[in-house]
C-alpha cells in the first residue's frame, strides 16, 4: 500500500510537470505575439505623439526637414498588392478549379500540385534577383513602346513578380474548398442535364464563394508583407507615384532601406509606425481569412 502510494506520487508529479511545460509553451506563443505588438507600439509612440493621425495622409517624406508622411508608402503598398492580386486571380482560380474539379487525381494533377508548391518555396530574394535581370528589361521595352519613361523598375514590375509569388496561396486553398463541394449537389445538377461548365458556374463556385474570397485574403496578406523581391524592383522613390509605371516604395521596402540609418528618434519611430500599420493590417486580413474558412468548413 505504501509503495504504491510512493510511485503514484512521483508519477503524478512528473506528469504534472510535463503538462505544465506544455501549458507554458502555449503561453509563450501568446507572450511573443503580444510582445511583438507592444514593442512596435512603444517604439512608434514618439512619432505618434509628434505627428498624430496626419501622418497617414501626409504626402511628403523628407527626413532632412523632419517631415514624415506615410501616404506614398501606403499608396505604394496598396497599388502593388491589389494589382498583384488582380493579375494572379485568373491563374490561381484556374489552378484551383482544375485540381479541384476536373482532375483531382492522376499524375498530371500531382505534377501541377507539386509545381504550385515549388512556386511557393522559391525564396523571395531569388525572385527579386531574377525579376531584376529578366523582368525589368522586358518592362522597359514595354514602357518605351507606350512612350512612358523607361525605368524598367516600378510599381508594375513589382506587381508582376508579386503576382507570381502569391498564386499558390489562393490556388491551394481554392482547390481544397472546391473539392469539398458536396457531390450530392453536383450529381443532382448533372442528373438534370447540366454541363460541367454549368455545374461549376451555378453550383460549385457560388457554394465556395466565401472560401475562395478567404483565399484571396490570404494571398493579399502575403503580398502586403513581402519585402525583398519588391525592394529590388520597385525603384525606391519616396515620391507619390504618378502612375503604375512610376517608381515607388512600399511600407516594407522603405523600412528595409532606411531602418539602419534612421538617426533621429522621430525618423526611426516613423518607420516603426509603418511597421506597426503593416503588422495590424496583415494580421487583421489573415485572421478574417482564417475565420471565413473555418466558418465555411464547419457549415
Amino acid at each position, binding site marked *: 500500500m505504501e509503495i504504491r502510494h510512493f510511485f503514484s506520487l512521483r508519477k503524478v508529479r512528473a506528469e504534472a510537470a510535463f503538462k505544465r511545460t506544455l501549458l507554458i*509553451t502555449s503561453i509563450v506563443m501568446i507572450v511573443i505575439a503580444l510582445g511583438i505588438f507592444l514593442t512596435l507600439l512603444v517604439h512608434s509612440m514618439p512619432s505618434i505623439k509628434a505627428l498624430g493621425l496626419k501622418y497617414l495622409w501626409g504626402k511628403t517624406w523628407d527626413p532632412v526637414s523632419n517631415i514624415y508622411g506615410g501616404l506614398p508608402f501606403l499608396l505604394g503598398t496598396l497599388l502593388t498588392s491589389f494589382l498583384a492580386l488582380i493579375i494572379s486571380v485568373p491563374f490561381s482560380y484556374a489552378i484551383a478549379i482544375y485540381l479541384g474539379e476536373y482532375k483531382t487525381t492522376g499524375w498530371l494533377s500531382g505534377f501541377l500540385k507539386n509545381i504550385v508548391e515549388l512556386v511557393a518555396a522559391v525564396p523571395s*530574394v531569388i525572385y527579386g534577383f531574377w525579376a531584376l535581370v529578366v523582368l525589368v528589361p522586358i518592362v522597359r521595352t514595354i514602357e518605351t513602346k507606350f512612350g512612358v519613361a523607361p525605368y524598367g523598375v516600378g510599381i508594375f514590375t513589382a506587381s508582376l513578380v508579386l503576382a507570381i509569388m502569391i498564386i499558390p496561396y489562393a490556388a491551394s486553398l481554392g482547390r481544397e474548398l472546391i473539392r469539398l463541394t458536396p457531390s450530392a449537389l453536383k450529381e443532382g445538377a448533372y442528373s438534370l442535364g447540366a454541363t460541367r461548365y454549368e455545374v461549376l458556374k451555378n453550383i460549385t463556385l457560388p457554394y465556395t464563394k466565401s472560401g475562395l474570397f478567404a483565399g484571396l485574403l490570404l494571398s493579399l496578406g502575403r503580398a502586403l508583407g513581402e519585402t525583398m523581391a519588391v525592394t529590388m524592383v520597385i525603384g525606391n522613390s519616396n515620391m507619390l507615384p504618378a502612375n503604375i509605371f512610376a517608381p515607388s516604395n512600399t511600407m516594407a521596402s522603405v523600412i528595409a532601406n532606411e531602418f539602419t540609418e534612421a538617426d533621429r528618434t522621430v525618423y526611426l519611430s516613423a518607420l516603426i509606425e509603418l511597421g506597426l500599420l503593416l503588422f495590424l493590417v496583415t494580421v487583421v486580413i*489573415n485572421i478574417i481569412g482564417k475565420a471565413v474558412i473555418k466558418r465555411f468548413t464547419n457549415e
Partner: protein
Amino acid sequence: MWKSRAFEALIILFAFLITLPLFAIIYYVVKTGIAQINWNFLTNIPQPVGELGGGIANALVGSILIVLIATAIAVPLGILCGIYLSENSNSKISYWSRLAVDILQGTPSIVIGIVIYFWVVKPRGGFSALSGSIALAIMMLPIIIRSTEENLKLIPSSLKEAGLALGLPYQKVILRIIIPCGFSGILSGIMLAVARVAGETAPLLFTAFGNPYLSTNLLKPMQSLPLLIFNYATSPYDEWHQLAWGASTILLIWVLLLNISTKLITRKWKVQL
C-alpha cells in the same frame, strides 16, 4: 456543350501557365550560376572588390549555422506547443494560443526583424548570428506548431487511452507512443519550416548583419546566403553578380531538395492506422 469544352480548355491553359515562370526562373538561375560552382567557390570567402577568386564559404557556413540554431530553438518549443493544442482543443488558453500562432504566421518577416533588433541586438550591444536565429525561429514556430497539431489530431485517441490504461505516465504516452506515430507529418512540418526560413532575408537585415569573413561565432555577425545574394545582386560589380548567381543556385537547390524530400518522406513513412 462546346461552351463547356471551351471553358475547360481555358482553365487548363491558365492553370498550366504557372509552370512557365517557375521553369524560367529555375532554368535561368541554374544556367547562370552553375558555372560558378567549383571547389574554390565553396571554400573561399569573397575577395576585395576587383579581385578574382572569391567564393561564398562564409555565407554557406553562416546559413547552415543560423538555420541549425533556429531549428534547435523552434523544434522543441513548437512540438510541445503543438501537443498542448491538440490535447486541449477547447481550453481558453488554447483559443488565445491558436490566435497568437495565427498572428505570428501572418506577421511580415521584416516586422520580426525590427522586433528582434530591439529585443536582442540593442540590449546585447551588437549584431549576432544568434539574434538572426531567434528571428528565424519565430517564423518557424507557426509552421511546426500547425503541422504537429494537425498530425496529432489525426491519431485516434484510442491509442492514447490504451497507453494510459496500461498505467504509463502521460509524458511517456505522448513522447514514446503518439509522437513517433505522427512522426512523418511532424518531420515534414519541420522540413517545410526549414525550407521557408533558409531563404529569408528581411529578418536577417538588422540582426545577423553580415560578415565578410568566415565565422562560427554565434555571438557575432554572420553572413548568410540570402543576405549575400541581396547585397551582391544590387551591386554594380560583375564579379559580385557572378557570386550572387552561384549562391542563388545553391540556395535554390537546397530549398527545392528540402521540399522534394519532404514529399518523399511523407509518402514513404506514412503510418497506416
